[in-house]
């Protein structure tokens, strides 16, 4: 599923990359930027954590004019007189005015590196509301954010994941080659699909999926010994041949009702009780001696 999300065929929304200190998700984020630029899309990057040079390193030179880097790395909290971009500018009104400055006609992709930085300085409900508005807005085609899950409380990570359309959690692979990405995607109809893949990122920032990880820790299937057939090796015969089976089934059991009576009994209407009585030979049903005159 990872290549599909990379290609953006699923239609944008909010993609969240969750990483931890064991494995950094920044390379995957850069491959997302690379894929968007290859698709001739305009990309805006809000960079808090790494410098512009470091982020642009490895990306294609020719598509650089479509990449707009809003430098929040130098002065994110606005301590100097004229900061480029501060963290407090992360609100819907300020962002839309910022994006209008770089005139574009078609919807662009917004990449946030990283959301953890913003969440440390602005309260979570405000960030969630801004993300929700960005997700819905017509100007932004897709929002891709990086979140360091070990920097925040579980409730906060959960709240942000709840907003996301797709969540990709990356962790280091067991065997040392490549990393494992667990992807969860929610479609508009409410259907949820999940996938776990081993991937690796090459020098030119293309992602190759190498397959599924084998799960050693999950359900141990017990190797049951094939149970010994108890009907074998006996001095008497416990098995039936086909002819014997047929004869057994043809045998009419005593005290059994006819087929019509059985169906009548089985399909009686609900809630009514009927007494079906078939007088047999021993019953003496004398018409002239009814029990109605018994005064009981």
């Amino acid at each position, binding site marked *: 599923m990872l290549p599909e999300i990379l290609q953006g065929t699923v239609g944008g929304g909010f993609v969240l990359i969750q990483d931890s200190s064991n494995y950094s998700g920044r390379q995957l984020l850069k491959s997302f930027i690379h894929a968007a630029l290859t698709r001739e899309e305009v990309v805006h990057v809000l960079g808090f954590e790494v410098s512009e040079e470091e982020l642009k390193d490895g990306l294609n030179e020719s598509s650089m004019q479509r990449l707009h880097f809003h430098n929040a790395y130098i002065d994110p909290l606005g301590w100097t007189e004229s900061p480029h971009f501060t963290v407090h500018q992360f609100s819907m009104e300020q962002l839309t005015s910022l994006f209008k400055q770089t005139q574009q006609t078609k919807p662009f992709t917004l990449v946030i590196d990283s959301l953890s930085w913003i969440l440390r300085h602005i309260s*979570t409900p405000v960030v969630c509301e801004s993300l929700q508005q960005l997700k819905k807005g017509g100007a932004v085609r897709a929002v891709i954010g990086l979140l360091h899950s070990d920097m925040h409380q579980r*409730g906060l990570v959960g709240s942000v994941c709840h907003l996301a359309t797709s969540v990709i959690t990356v962790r280091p692979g067991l065997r040392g080659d490549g990393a494992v990405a667990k992807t*969860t995607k929610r479609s508009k109809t409410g259907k*949820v699909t999940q996938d776990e893949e081993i991937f690796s990122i090459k020098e030119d920032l293309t992602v190759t999926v190498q397959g599924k990880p084998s799960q050693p820790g999950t359900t141990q299937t017990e190797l049951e010994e094939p149970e010994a057939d108890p009907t074998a090796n006996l001095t008497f015969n416990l098995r039936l041949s086909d002819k014997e089976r047929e004869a057994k089934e043809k045998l009419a059991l005593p005290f059994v009702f006819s087929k019509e009576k059985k169906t009548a009994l089985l399909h009686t209407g609900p809630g009514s009780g009927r007494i079906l009585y078939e007088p047999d030979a021993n019953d003496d049903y004398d018409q002239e001696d009814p029990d109605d005159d018994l005064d009981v």
Partner: protein
Amino acid sequence: MAAPMKSVGSKLSVERPAFTTTSFQKKTRSKLVSIPGTRPSVQNGQLIVSTGVTSLDYLLGGGLAVGTLLLIEEDRYDSYSRMILKYFLAEGVVCRHELFVAAVQESPDDILQELPAPILDDIAIHKPVEQHGLPCGPQDSLDSMKIAWRYQNLPKVQSALASSSRFGHYYDVSKTMEPEIRQAANCHRFYFPEHPTQSSPTQSPMLESYSALLKSLQEVIHKGGFDGAAPMTKSRNILRIGLHSLGSALWGDDLCCRDNPRHSHALTTFLYGLRALLRSSLSVAVVTLPSHLIQNRALMGSITRLCDNAISLESFKGSERETNPLYKDYHGLLHVRQVPHLNCLVSELPDRKDLAFKLKRKQFSIERLHLPPDLSETVSRVSRGELAGAAMPGSACGSSTSGNKHLDF
């Protein structure tokens, strides 16, 4: 309480089920008008409405009592709780009640457009329970059981929850409700991002979003005459309130984000005010809450206590239980967290605690989870031996408990 006084003595609702188990109808000479879509409960005489899901009605003691609140703790991806909310609203449309929908993640119109279509003919309903192990067709089933043939049509295990009389409708999830039917119902909407913000000067423990919602509800109830303000001649109706994803970060509440939320009493104050509104009017509310995000269990406990009914959905999607063969027929587990005590000391508790649900096309069924008997020899032997060892610490035979684990009498 306002609700039960109106309910006692009203005739049974006009809808007769396709087959009646009994033709008894209570005759009363009261002048009270009966509200369509409601009926008095057989347990305590409260006026109840159907939630739209018949198995859930059975769990709640026949239905949701008018004037109460049902809390649904959402599953991880909010698929099934949203489905139950849609069933609830669809039932309101079919019973011609009024609706009030509040949402913050998407517009209430999106929820209203996804309501399932009602199945209006009575054929697909309430057959004797179909089971997996039952052979197909009534004709050849006679040959399947030769001796115990009377038990053929009975299910192997009585797992589906159903009551004898029909109350509530069935819906087809694959189709959406026709726009004509939906527009016939009066729907009030509350969409917080588009709600005009009124700056309240008073310092209230509630957040702005919650107080705006409560004010809006109060206006709707008062204008619609649900609280008895309108004269008696006007026909009464029920207001069904559906609040989606209350307490999530989009309402402005940091209940789900922090372990020690700053506004820890905002949601609880809101629920208190909501319950007061519900008790004094002919309305019923269903609230969904993303409880899997709330880390503070004490707060979650107080929220549960403030609601009358509370159930929690746990879906298997994405958890390791998905591959468990025990759960392969079901979509998730359902836990009943709270049952109401309405004018009584003892409430009707469900007799089984382990319930599982599955969403079929024509029904959302909640069933008792049955564990198959454990037939492997080693397990039973060890447990019996251990039990025997534990029960007799100093056995008369003089043998030590640990040595004779495999003694089998």
